[in-house]
């Protein structure tokens, strides 16, 4: 069985992303994260159009769609890059975490052990904390008004985007490896 990190990570990723449902989950989360990031400055506009009873359906669809184009016009190369990477990595993380949680629950049920909510939660935190934290950080910082602080940084806040990408990539590697090791771990090997 493969034991070095790169092969374990690859094994874990393959284990999950050969299953169409998890690919679909990753894509859906990726799309939602990307859309939120791009729409963030104009959520009021989108909300207004969607709730405006006099606005034709055509505009309710067209306006949010056209605003997605701002990834090209309203982002620097750096910010567009990490926005896209964070969206993709977060989608992958959610799929990996979902797989691992479902696998754990199934394994525990098979073993006939009761699993409380706290056990599930600690599992989620243990696997997904870095992923959730990094997405929250990069989205939340502007929401809670720290733009002033960001302006003093060399990349004007882009540093947080880069940190987010790194954390999410590390989380993908971590969870993938964990999934892969579950394939090599048999109860009889653990003393």
């Amino acid at each position: 069985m493969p034991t070095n990190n790169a092969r374990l990570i690859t094994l874990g990723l393959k284990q999950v992303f050969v299953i169409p449902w998890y690919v679909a989950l990753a894509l859906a989360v990726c799309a939602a994260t990307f859309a939120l990031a791009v729409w963030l400055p104009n959520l009021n506009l989108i909300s207004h159009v969607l709730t405006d009873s006099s606005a034709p359906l055509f505009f309710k669809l067209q306006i949010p769609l056209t605003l997605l184009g701002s990834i090209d016009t309203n982002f620097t190369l750096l910010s567009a890059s990490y926005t896209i990477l964070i969206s993709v990595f977060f989608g992958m993380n959610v799929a990996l975490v979902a797989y691992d949680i479902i696998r754990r629950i199934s394994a525990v049920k098979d073993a006939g052990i009761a699993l409380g909510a706290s056990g599930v939660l600690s599992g989620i935190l243990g696997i997904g904390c870095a992923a959730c934290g990094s997405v929250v950080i990069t989205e939340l910082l502007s929401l809670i008004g720290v733009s002033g602080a960001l302006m003093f940084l060399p990349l004007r806040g882009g540093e947080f985007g880069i940190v987010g990408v790194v954390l999410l990539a590390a989380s993908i590697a971590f969870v993938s490896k964990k999934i892969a090791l579950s394939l090599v771990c048999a109860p009889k090997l653990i003393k």
Partner: protein
Amino acid sequence: MHNEHHQSHESEQAREHEEIVKFESGNSYFLSASILTAGILIAGSVLYSTSKGTSNPAPQPTGGNNPPAVASADLSKVLAVGNRDIILGDQKAPVTLIEYGDYQCPFCGKMFTQVEPQLREEYIKTGKVKMVYRNFQFLGAESTNAGASAECAKDQGKFWVYHDELYKAEIADGKENSGNLNRALFVNLAEKAGLDANVFASCYDNNKYVAQIEKDKNDASAIGVNATPTNYINGQMVQGAQPYAAFKSVIDLELTKK
């Protein structure tokens, strides 16, 4: 032979077990480190924002996530077209587009080159939209001076020609606070725009509109402007250098209501 194979298999199992034990140990360190990192970043940002004593974040050019600030003034009052507003297009046009910009903002430059040409051709010249440009000059002294110089151009009825020349010059320079937006350039652009250079220079040298620039920025901040470009289309905020298609959609929606 059989013993060698058995020993090799046991070594492999031992290596795998060691890998699992190492991984489980690393798991707890990773969890602790990630919680700590997230906690420090979030706590630090919350502390910083509350210590500033303001509900509104400092302005910046758009370019990514930057939600609008909380409005504290009457929007309709501030957005009403006033004496200092020079309208581009037909005064009777059903849709009003007010742009808050900074002459050094690269995203305002993008809007100037990628959105305005089509906007002027398809909506302003055809009498559907009237456009107003207002100052939200915040990127430094050069921005303030540029804004003040443009106000001097208003005195001679040449605001929009001068405004266009100013953006072209800054886009060509491509850098903020590089020193290019200076008196010599302003006078040069004024001559190019057909202004009386002596009258213009006198206005600029006397700092006639410096206080006005600051007032414009404060008025804009009060309605939630905290980034440039910020546009209001019939009172609806559209923030950022959005693609032309987005502006077109919002304008077309407003036109269906008229």
